[in-house]
């Protein structure tokens, strides 16, 4: 293996139910902050369930890029505006053709496609404003590259709930390959009738705020949002230190109950980072609050880190909802915020406090818990048995 180039996560932009921008999300992570309001979302089954919707107004898509216009594209612009200045700086220094865009998404603008199909079934024609580019899975990256006038390679990773974690891993690969000097990476998913009803059909959606690791947990809340980083081939600052990817090869929509795929990707990420398990200071859990995920994930962590040696961990899904293809980037964003602050506070594990005694014990972060944090891990596990772990390291 050749020596790695630096992969500095220079800046972060994000938007999700937890907050309209990076600072608002950071504030939400503070101990004692109220949980964000989730929106009541009606399902075809007649259920009304909480959904982590972005409620504020979103930027308009410019007229020249109307064919890409979708709520997903609007979320990406809202996140991009927060990093635009640092991207322009990189483009000036390296050249626009040396800045790539690699995003993860599972929805793209499928909601616009859903409405168009319903319209076509009534009227016999797709609506006038519809374009396939609204829902193409490649569009998030192609749109953002056109929006930001970046001329490096641009493409989308779509592997369900691990999409944007993998996009961050791929961004580092592009820098390693020498094909670019900077990458806008991350991703986002937007509200979709299709995914809401699909997860309902799978019996995975809770009627209440999700309750990760609790004995009372009964499923996930979906959410929407986007998070983008500017990654540059530089040392210093906050670094993407290691990535691990694996496949369960057991089932397409349920995790391997033994957690073998999760164990493998976490071990690969540690090996890639050249770190021992004891050197990880905090873990952001996938923590969806389904029966299966939380059981599998706790088991996997105890296997890798050892009983009584798992670092402080929390699920931040009660603050954001499960943003699916956007979750890996949003949770990497939460890790970035945790590393960027000098206050040494950890994102709190928000639940009813009644830990499931059946779960292998992992130390869930309490209100007000502090720690010196220099190295963090974020886990993502998706449909298709697609797993990805990211390790990030703060400025020393």
């Amino acid at each position, binding site marked *: 293996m050749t020596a790695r180039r630096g992969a500095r996560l220079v800046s972060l932009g994000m938007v999700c139910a937890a907050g309209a921008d990076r600072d608002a999300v950071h504030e939400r992570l503070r101990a004692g902050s109220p949980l964000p309001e989730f929106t009541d979302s009606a399902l075809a089954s007649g259920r009304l369930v909480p959904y982590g919707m972005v409620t504020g107004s979103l930027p308009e898509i410019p*007229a020249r890029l109307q064919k890409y216009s979708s709520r997903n594209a609007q979320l990406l612009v809202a996140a991009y505006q927060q990093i635009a200045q640092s991207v322009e700086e990189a483009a000036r220094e390296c050249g626009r053709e040396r800045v790539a865009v690699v995003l993860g998404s599972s929805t793209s603008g499928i909601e616009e496609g859903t409405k168009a199909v319903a319209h076509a079934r009534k009227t016999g024609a797709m609506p006038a404003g519809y374009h396939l580019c609204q829902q193409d899975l490649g569009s998030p990256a192609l749109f953002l590259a056109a929006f930001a006038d970046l001329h490096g390679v641009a493409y989308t990773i779509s*592997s369900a709930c691990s999409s944007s974690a993998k996009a961050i891993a791929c961004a580092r690969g592009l820098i*390693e390959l020498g094909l670019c000097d900077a990458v806008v990476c991350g991703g986002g998913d937007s509200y979709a009738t*299709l995914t809401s009803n699909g997860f309902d*059909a799978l019996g995975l959606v809770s009627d209440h705020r999700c309750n990760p690791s609790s004995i009372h947990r009964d499923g996930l809340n979906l959410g929407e949002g986007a998070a983008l980083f500017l990654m540059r081939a530089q040392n210093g600052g906050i670094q993407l230190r290691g990535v691990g990817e694996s496949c369960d090869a057991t089932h*397409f929509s349920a995790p391997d109950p033994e957690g073998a795929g999760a164990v493998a990707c976490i071990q690969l990420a540690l090996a890639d980072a050249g770190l021992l398990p004891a050197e990880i200071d905090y873990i952001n859990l996938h923590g969806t609050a389904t029966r299966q995920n939380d059981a599998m994930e706790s088991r996997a962590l105890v296997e890798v880190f050892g009983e009584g040696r798992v670092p402080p961990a929390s699920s931040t899904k009660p603050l954001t909802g499960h943003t699916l293809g956007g979750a890996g980037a949003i949770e990497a964003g939460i890790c970035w915020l945790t590393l960027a602050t000098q206050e040494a506070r950890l994102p709190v594990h928000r639940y009813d406090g009644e830990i499931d005694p059946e779960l292998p014990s992992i130390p869930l972060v309490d209100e007000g818990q502090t720690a010196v944090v220099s190295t963090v891990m974020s886990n993502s596990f998706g449909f*298709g048995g697609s797993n990805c772990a990211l390790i990030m390291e703060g400025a020393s």
Partner: protein
Amino acid sequence: MKCFSFDLLAWSAWAPGLETREAWSEWALTPYSPTGAERPSIANVPAALRRRCSQHDRMVLEVGTNCAAEAIPGSGGQVPPAVVLGSRHGEAQVTRVLLDLLAEGEPLSPMRFSLSVHNASSGLLSIATGNKGVFRSISASIDSLGAAWIEALSLLVDHSSVLLIVAEEEPPADHHPYLDEQTAAFALAVLLGRGEGCQLELAPETAPLRSLLEVQSKSAEQPSLESRPLPHALQLAAWLARGEIGEFEMSSLNLNWRLAKNGR
């Protein structure tokens, strides 16, 4: 300009009516867009898995395992632990069935929903072959081959071989007016290994960037479907089927691509 060297260890392609190497060789003399709803049999895949596979999934499994088997005869098609799958349309047909159900107010099948994700075919390939390695599922409109290829080069840094697959079903008919290339049903797998057998040059595009030319497209202004270019992956299949003679060129991702075998 960037140059990359690698070996082309094996390739395999499948399309309706093009099921043998001989058929592909003949097709490559005058390439056209293969269409049709026929599916490969994937007889080696367990029946319980096979009956859940869309045409897209079946083609991915067919070319993925055949390509690996060709590279290492007797290996039984053991796919290397690094796989990249590029597709523009992915599971567009499965997704359309779900959108129709939603429009009718009908309940969704949980199985069909799980298999509508873009990485369904790579998940199925991992299950069918017991492969627990790195799978990356990519989409980049008409540049999906280019994007998947770049990811394959990236994975070759840490892996001795990488399986690159591009597969497309024909998208639903009402998507056709929005397309800028011919529709086709096909899959192509290429096994890349570390080595010096081939050289790929990637040079910045000199023509105006596509993103700068973009205007809101209206279906009425589009050229007829037949006069649009073949998907890049079919152009590559033609070069491979003709015996990898001369250069393969394409314009993808704002880059000019030139691929040639070394020592010819």
